[in-house]
């Protein structure tokens, strides 16, 4: 196990290295020159050239890459042009908002998806099961932004009860409990939109994982021994299904960040997805590179976590063979 962990960790570092090369090349192929545009146009050409030379503008591309990578390793991701602040500071300003949105929507989707998935697995082929299946198909098929727009139309205009943009009411100066309540009210609609897709996915996984477990012999044995049905379902079956459910939750973390881009853009939620979208539009390349690198680390860690959970829970997995 230790050896397996060590090898996976090493592999992740190697992949991260590749990711950093891809990000760097992608940004360098981009049109426009943010450095020249951000300079004072009154500076003399000689001074300008000296300044550019000082920041390494004329270095060969691989030197520029290594400079970027080594300072990134030291935790320095450069300066954001748009915010005039270090990239790491911008990320730490906005990331918590995305994490707040992502984790509440993850919780909401689990609260709905797990009971619904278990229920439809128990009542296989009943009307309720069909209902759950059709709902999850609709959840997978509706464009998230379209769903968001419908909610905005309904709850902001036709029946104005919820705020649809931002994180706090503009011009208000709430403190303490009122501030929390204000944020919660703003959180509702984006959470629902972001949760929809994952709710659908989790439902389908929970349902099929439960069906697979419920068909096994040890469930029949438990029932034959006279174990109460509630116990059979939650203690015997669900525990075993939980493994694949946990894996799919871990693997959906990148999707939450991806989904956050559109959701945050529509609801003007001040999170990392919206900042990234704006940064691309404004050609704030250091910020884009920093965000992408950070997200790649998050994805690698969640994949690693999924593998570890899987390996811990299922001793049949062999560590020496690459699947």
């Amino acid at each position, binding site marked *: 196990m230790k050896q397996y962990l060590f090898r996976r960790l090493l592999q992740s570092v190697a992949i991260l290295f*590749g990711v950093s090369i891809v990000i760097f090349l992608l940004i360098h192929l981009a049109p426009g020159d943010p450095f020249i545009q951000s300079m004072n146009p009154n500076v003399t050409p000689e001074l300008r050239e000296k300044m550019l030379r000082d920041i390494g503008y004329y270095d060969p591309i691989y030197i520029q890459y290594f400079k970027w990578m080594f300072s990134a390793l030291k935790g320095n991701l450069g300066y954001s042009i748009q915010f005039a602040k270090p990239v790491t500071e911008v990320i730490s300003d906005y990331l918590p908002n995305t994490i707040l949105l992502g984790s509440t929507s993850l919780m909401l989707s689990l609260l709905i998806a797990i009971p619904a998935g278990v229920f439809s697995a128990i009542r296989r082929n009943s009307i309720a099961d069909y209902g759950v299946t059709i709902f999850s198909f609709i959840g997978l098929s509706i464009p998230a932004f379209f769903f968001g727009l419908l909610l905005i139309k309904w709850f902001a205009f036709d029946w104005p009860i919820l705020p649809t943009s931002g994180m706090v009411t503009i011009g208000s100066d709430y403190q303490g409990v009122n501030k929390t309540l204000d944020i919660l009210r703003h959180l509702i609609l984006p959470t629902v939109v972001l949760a929809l897709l994952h709710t659908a996915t989790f439902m389908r996984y929970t349902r099929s994982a439960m069906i697979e477990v419920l068909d096994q012999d040890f469930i029949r044995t438990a029932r034959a021994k006279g174990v109460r049905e509630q116990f059979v379902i939650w203690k015997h079956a669900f525990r075993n299904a939980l493994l694949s459910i946990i894996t799919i939750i871990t693997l959906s973390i990148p999707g939450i960040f991806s989904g956050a881009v559109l959701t945050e853009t529509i609801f003007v939620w001040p999170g990392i997805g919206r900042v990234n979208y704006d940064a691309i539009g404004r050609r704030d390349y250091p910020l884009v590179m920093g965000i*992408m690198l950070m997200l790649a680390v998050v994805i690698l860690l969640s994949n690693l976590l999924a593998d570890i959970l899987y390996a811990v829970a299922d001793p049949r997995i062999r560590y020496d063979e690459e699947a």
Partner: protein
Amino acid sequence: MKNDILSPRALAWKKLLRNKLAIFGGVLLLFLVLSSLLAPWIAPYSVNEIDLFNIESPPGVDHLLGTDDLGRDVFSRLLYGGRVSMTVGLLASASQILLGTLAGAIAGYYGGWTDSIIMRLVDIIMCFPFFILSICVAALLGPSMRNIIIIIAVIYWTNVARIVRAEVLSLKKREFIDAARAFGLSGWEIILQHIIPNVMASVTVYATLAIANGILTEASLSFLGLGVKPDIPSWGNMLSAAQSMRVLTRQWWLWIPPGVLVLLTVLSINFLGDGIRDALDPKLKV
């Protein structure tokens, strides 16, 4: 009762035809595809025909689904827009399947260094959240229908490659591959004639779902202004009208119909794809 023995293909068809949701999806999809294909004959107006007396008019007798800010007929543009959205879905799916199947088959069949290089590339691409990478690339390449197809193909072939590689690894150990090799066939001949036909079943399922995904991606990117340019109607760029608060709140006919069409198309493809998956799964009984 006579004892039928069905070929695997007949069995799959029988299973598919018993799946109510798949039938519903298939019929709905057929209807949507036909109405886009026959757009020039069905549409009451041409794509860019401007009716200056009816600008932003609500649905009525003259214009079934109203008109947009330039006085163009929304219903006609929806029919033509379906062609663009479905073309993006089809071509994006076909190109990622082509790339992914080849890469996966080569990696799985040759193994060793070739395999390591291809699969590490897959790992690297999979490290980017799809949507963030695609808006980045879309912003770099500029908005166009061709670029969307390229973006989807370049990012998504990795899924196909993984599926195909896993299947090839198990196929490789079978006797018929040994036999082919004993006949003196080259690696390429074995891959193209013996391996790829055998992975087509699982690839078909993936391809169906990839079309649905492509349509969704087109809609999202065009909504953000990074997809199909506004001069050709697509469901996605028609939806981007809803970025204006006035349209969003008062002119529902400009954005709800394209959104509903995306939903219905993707839903019908998903129903059908899921039905095909079940039909091809030998573990599921009729």
